[in-house]
Every structure is written in C-alpha cells, then in structure tokens.
C-alpha cells in the first residue's frame, strides 16, 4: 500500500516541526533571560580567569622578557608580580611577570587554561623567560574533584575550543553535543552548574569548630574592614573594579604604594583574621572540601597537572614547579598523606624531568604570615615569599651575600 502524502499532511508535519523548534528556542531564551537577570553567568564562575585569558594577546605583545606564576588562589595571594619585577631587575634580570593564580580551579580546569596560554604564545611566537607552576597538593585530591564535578562540563565548555569539542564529539557524541550546547546555546552555564549554584545553600552541613569566636576581634575586624576599604578608595581613586587587573599584572596592591599607617592597620587586620575560631573552622572546611590532611589524590588530576607543566615547558625557557608554604600550625599531614604526596611528586618529576621545589616548610614563612590556614597575607607572607622566589631564581654568590 502506498501512502501518498498530501499537502495537509506536510502542513501538519511542518506545524509539529515548527512547534518543536520555536518551543525549544523560547525555552532556551527563557533560560538565558533567567541567567542574565539573576546574574548567574559564565563570568560568575570564571570572571577572573576569563579576564586573564583575554589579556594574553596583550601580554605576548610586551617588549620585556616575560614571566608567569601559574597556580591556585595561594599563588593569587602569595605572589606579587610588581615586587618580583622590581627585585629581579635589581638583581640584573629584568622581567615582566604576571600572576595567573586562580581560586576554585583544579588541575583539570587549569590544564585547559594552560593550553590556551600555550596556544597564544605559540601563535604570537613568544616565549616565557620563566614559568613558575604551583603544585597545590590539596587541589589534586579526590574530595576536591568530587566537590566540583558538576562544574567540569561548564569549565570545559567555557575554556575549551571548538576543536576540542569536536574531538570529544568523535569519542562521545552525547558529551560533544552537550559541550556545544552549553557553550553556544546556554552561554556557558550547564544545568548542573546552575543547580549547584542555586542549591549551594542546601548542601549538607560540614563539621564546625567548637572553639568560640573572639567577639572583640570580630568586632574590630568589621571596623578595620570598613576603614581599609575607605583607605583603598583614597589611595586608588581611579581603580576600576577588575578582578584580574592588567595594571597590577594580575596581582594585588604592594606595600611600597601604601602608607606606614595603612600597613599598620593591615597588620592589625590580619591578626583579627587569625583567631583560633576562624583558623580551626577554616581547617575543618579544607578537610571537608579538599581532604587537606589525608591528601588522597585523584590520579587523573595528577596527570592533568603533568599536562600543565608540559604545556609550559613548550613555551618557556625555564620552568620551575613549586609547592607553596603551608600554615604548619594548623595543617599537619598524616604519615600516610606524606607518603602519598611523595609518590605524587615522584610521578610529576618522572613525567616532566623537573625537580620540584618543596617550599611547604619554608623557615622564612611563619604562621603569622597567613590570613587563614592556606593563604599568605599579601603584605607579610606574600612579600616574604615573593622575595624568596627572587632569591631562588637569581642566586647570589655566597661571598657577595656575605659582603
């Protein structure tokens, strides 16, 4: 039996077809409208990273030798590019350095970003004189990865390239189409990322410290916070609220620009941050979110980190891999964790051919130089660690140092 098609039949299919396309188009439009109106955009997830990525063409156009410190929020807080440049120049090795330290990432996401850095440098025929890469142990744990699984597709969709999506499409069509969809139809926000963003407050609670908060310190902290905000506005009246500031080379303010009085206020402010209550609670938070004491590593994250190092090795004259200082008063790893860390370091060294600098127990850095259990204070710890890096990179002959 032949069923010849009539124009009414075609009109019906056309109607169904249009209903599907218009319906889906309208639904996607609503999704985007909602994202924009609630402020849940790709910029919310990766604003600072995207700004740094956007600055790459400008960086490669710089006339000076280039240096880059790539890592986590510990690098963001603990490395001052402008201080570094100044001290390197004093030691006869002028460079222009950039802080590429970002919070909330893990090596999987950093690996994608490092590919973009590599591509830009290769495209522009530039090389980095020095690449410093942080290996942050607690960023590579299973716990840390599990906490960000719902963001993995979003990160890849935002930071990846169509060529990378195509490669995924060939291996796993479902995932490949999803990445294109997230990037080009959903403006970088996957459903999981949206749900986790909105429902973040409903996550099961973690263990909290039993140490009571120092009420006086808390109240003084609030006061100082306001005073320091005011001081900032006075000292930097033209500063635009960029999260990755090209003028500051991705770093923050430096002590040389601040008055002695402001620096004294900062010292006091840092002290109010280091109450037993806050530090113990921060330690528990890091245990909960990153397994910072036991360090059970995710092998995929270790391999992703090796990928980062290799990307930088391709575009750099000198690559150094470092572990930043830890607040030893609050973060003490178990012997098993130390063994696991040693194995991970050995794997990285074997795969990259580099010797890793272990600065975790650096004598020059004391617990008073941290603002919490992991991050260095900008005007104390950050200054000291940046200086340490300069010394490592430009060692002075023993005799000169003595003189």
């Amino acid at each position: 039996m032949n069923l010849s098609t009539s124009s009414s039949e075609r009109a019906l299919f056309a109607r169904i077809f249009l209903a599907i396309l218009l319906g889906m188009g309208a639904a996607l439009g609503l999704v985007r409208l909602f994202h924009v109106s609630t402020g849940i955009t790709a910029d919310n997830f990766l604003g600072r990273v995207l700004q740094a990525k956007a600055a790459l063409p400008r960086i490669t156009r710089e006339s000076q030798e280039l240096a880059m410190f790539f890592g986590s929020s510990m690098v963001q807080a603990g490395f001052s590019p402008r201080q570094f440049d100044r001290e390197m120049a004093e030691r006869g090795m002028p460079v222009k350095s950039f802080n590429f330290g970002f919070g909330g990432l893990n090596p999987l996401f950093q690996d994608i970003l490092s590919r973009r850095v590599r591509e830009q440098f290769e495209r522009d025929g530039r090389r980095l004189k020095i690449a410093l890469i942080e290996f942050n142990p607690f960023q590579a744990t299973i716990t840390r990865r599990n906490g960000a699984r719902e963001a993995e597709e979003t990160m890849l969709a935002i930071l990846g390239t169509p060529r990378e999506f195509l490669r995924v499409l060939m291996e796993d069509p479902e995932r490949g189409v999803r990445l294109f969809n997230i990037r080009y139809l959903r403006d970088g926000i996957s459903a999981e990322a949206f749900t986790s963003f909105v429902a973040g407050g409903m996550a099961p609670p973690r263990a909290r410290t039993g140490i009571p908060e120092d009420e006086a310190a808390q109240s003084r902290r609030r006061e100082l916070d306001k005073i320091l905000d005011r001081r900032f506005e006075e000292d930097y009246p033209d500063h635009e609220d960029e999260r990755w500031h090209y003028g500051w080379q991705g770093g923050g303010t430096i002590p040389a620009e601040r008055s002695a009085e402001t620096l004294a206020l900062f010292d006091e402010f840092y002290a109010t941050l280091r109450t037993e209550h806050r530090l113990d609670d921060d330690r528990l938070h890091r245990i909960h979110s990153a397994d910072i004491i036991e360090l059970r590593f995710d092998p995929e994250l270790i391999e992703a980190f090796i990928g980062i190092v290799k990307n930088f090795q391709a575009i750099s004259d000198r690559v150094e891999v470092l572990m930043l200082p830890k607040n030893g008063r609050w973060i003490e790893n178990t012997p098993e964790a130390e063994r696991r860390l040693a194995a991970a370091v050995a794997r990285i060294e074997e795969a990259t051919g580099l010797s890793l600098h272990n600065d975790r127990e650096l004598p020059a850095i004391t617990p008073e130089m941290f603002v919490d259990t992991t991050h260095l204070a900008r005007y104390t710890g950050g200054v000291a660690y940046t200086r340490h890096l300069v010394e490592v990179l430009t060692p002075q002959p023993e005799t000169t140092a003595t003189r």
Partner: protein
Amino acid sequence: MIFNTPLFFAFFVVFLLFYGFVFLQRRPRVYFILVASLVFYGAWNYAFIPLLVGSAVLDYFLAQAIAAAPAGRRRKTLLGISIAVNLGILAVFKYADFAIGSVVDFLQLFGYQASVSSLELILPVGISFYTFQSMSYTIDVYRGDMQPRKGLVEFTAALAFFPQLVAGPILRARQILPQFHKLPLPTWVNAKHGFLLITVGLMKKTMADLLAVPAAAAFDAQGPISLMESWTGVLAFAGQIYGDFSGYSDMAIGLALLLGFQIPLNFRLPYFAVSPVDFWRRWHISLSSWLRDYLYIPLGGNRRGNRYCNIFITMLLGGLWHGAAWTFVAWGAFHGALIGVTHKLGELRLFAPFAHSRSLWIRIFKWALTFYLVLLGWVLFRATSLEGAWQMLVTLHSFGAVLPSPSHGAALVLGLTAAALLVMHLVDYGVLQHGERLAQKPWGFWPALVTVQALCLMIGEPSSEFIYFQF
C-alpha cells in the same frame, strides 16, 4: 542516546525532517524508522545491533513457521525454540554472572572454594524489553491470538521502534504491528498531547535526578544515618524511580504520538494505590500485564490450589527481570507475598467489609498502609545487598534508638522530597483528567509548556542515565 539530551533533540529534529518531508511513502518511511532506530540504538553500542536484529529475524521466521505448522508437537517445538533463544539471550547477557556468583557463594557455604571466573559481559541496553516484546509475538501466533505478519522489515522496525526500544513500555505485537502496517499519520490534537507528555516526562525526569541525591545520601552512606535521613532516602528513591521510569515512558508515548503512533499508558498514579494488587495495576502496566498474560495464566492463573503459588512465582520472576541480584529476587518475593496476602484477606469474611468499604477514612488507611509497604519494597530494590537492605529497614523502624542526629536542613530536604513526590502525582493526575482540555487552550498551554521546559533545561542533569536502561 537519552531523550533529555541535546544529542537526542538533534537526532529527532533531523528524523522528523526526513520522515515528514523527504520519505513520503509508507515503505520508505518504515525503512527509515528502522535505520533511525538502529542509529539510536547504535549510539549506545553498535556491537549489539546484530543481537537486536537477530532476535527479530529469528522470531519473525519462527512465527511464520508456527502459523504454517499443523497443530501439535512441531508448533510447540518451534515456540520452544523462540522462548529458549530469547530467554537464552537474557540468561547469557544478564544472568550468567549472577548464576556463577551464586553457585560459588553456595559452594562456599560448604567450605568448597570454587575458582570460576565470571563472564563480565556488557549488558545490552533494553535487552529485557525487546526480548519480551519479541517473545510475545511468537506466543500470540502460537495461541492463535494473531496472524503472523508479512514483512520482515516492518516487524524489525516495530521491534526496534526507537521511542520505546530501550526502556519500554513493552508493546505487544498486536498493539504495534497493525500500526506499522497502516502507518498512521499524526493529528494536531494528538501531537499537542504528545508535546504535553514529553514536557511532563522531562519534568519528572528532572525531579528524579534531583531526588537521586538524598536517596544516594541515605543508601550509600558510609556510616549510620539518622531516622529522618533514612525516611528521606526511601521517600526520595520512591520519587526517583517513579519520576525516572514514568518520565521516560511519558516521553516515549509523547514522541510516538508526534509520529502518529499510539502507545498505551504505562503508569496510572501508582502511589495513590489502595492495595498491593491495585499498585501493580498502576505500576509498569505493560510489564505486569505481560507477566499476567504470558506467565501467570500459563502457570495456571487463578485455579484453586495453585493461585498463591502462581502469584508468588510470577512476582519472583518479575523481580528477577529487573536485575540479576538477590535484592531484586527479594523485592519480587516481597510483592508476591503482599499480593497473595491481599487476595487471601479479601476472601476472608472477617475482612470483607474492610476490603470493600468505600469510607474515606478506611481508604486513607489502606492507601497509607499500601504506600508504607511499597516503600519497604523500594528498600530491597535500591539496596546494594540484602545486608544493606536489612540495615536500612532496621534504621527506618528504630524509633527511640541511639542514632545520629539529623543534620541541619534535613527537615527541609524531607519536606522538599515529599513535595516533589506529591507534585509528580498531581501533575500526572492533571494530565490524565484534564490533559485534553488543557491542550484546547493555546494561550495557556504553550506558555506553560515552554516555561516547564525552560525550568527543566535550567536545573536538569541530562548526563544521568535512566535507571530502567539497566534492566
């Protein structure tokens, strides 16, 4: 390929384009459905396409041979081959490792260490659905309930029809083959109903994925959990499995309607059931009716003496159909026992007034009791071992025992879980009772559909598979 993914959306749009505007005659359309269905199936694993096609080809020719054979032994032998091959496929791919593991465990009880390695075969997706569907055809032909159909491609296309291929509903040959012969055209009214079902299905699937989190928190917990969290977990799983499976069924029915095919309802508000028997008339209707027609009745059905035994065997095997694990067997046995006891009580004069009462309070009591028993069943279904199930059942009833305190926010999660379960049923009730009327109001209908779709796109998790794919 999963219905709620961009890949399936692209697949369906392209399919519809060719189906509606390029292949304009019946035969090319049937061929096209077959090719598209195999592409749909192959997106999961192309290696198993021969198994699906082979099963169809074998049953097609066996049905022809059964119809041509004279009544007697030869017909029985041919039917036996069909059943043996279909069940054999299931046995090898789905139950072999379970059987090997069970034998090894059994021998260990007597101190004998058997070193038999498991086959570790990949379970072809949808195998339990299409083997049952294919088998129903040869049985129906054998019984004389239908004549064998001419047209191998038509038969294979019907068996592999992509909306219902991987997770049902399990269609009878007599339901779907005549439709493939006529190849009906959609109507705009049916298409609108299809859009409504697809949207409701998507909504339920989205809610199911959200409920998976508290369910996993309770069932996969490494240590003891609080009483509230155990109940939240069980309720959440009840919602998850309902939203997941009935959502998939709704989408399958809706997609078929867009092409003009009618697929019968697979769920009818199961958690509103007022007895275990009533529950099975509402839950996975296509499976329960299949088991009734092709297992329970051949076993002897309601014949006195064997009735309870037949019910128990049917439900036990129904449980095993869901998965190769003792927890599924226990779940089937539990429901078999419940149905048997319900029938027995209904026969007792003492309980007759209760069983047939129309009093609202008694109906509420019966509903609550049934829902409670169904929830207990889900513990067996979801737990990864019988020990785990027992532990969860103990926790659920540990009123006053020393258990961890519920975490902050646990009451909110419990409330949201219960609300999600209720919302899914209320939406289903609305669709069942007022779906057609809703579709008549375009100014409310389309914006409502688009809004729900947008919400699902915003919070849905298209990467998670449907639970029933594994069965």
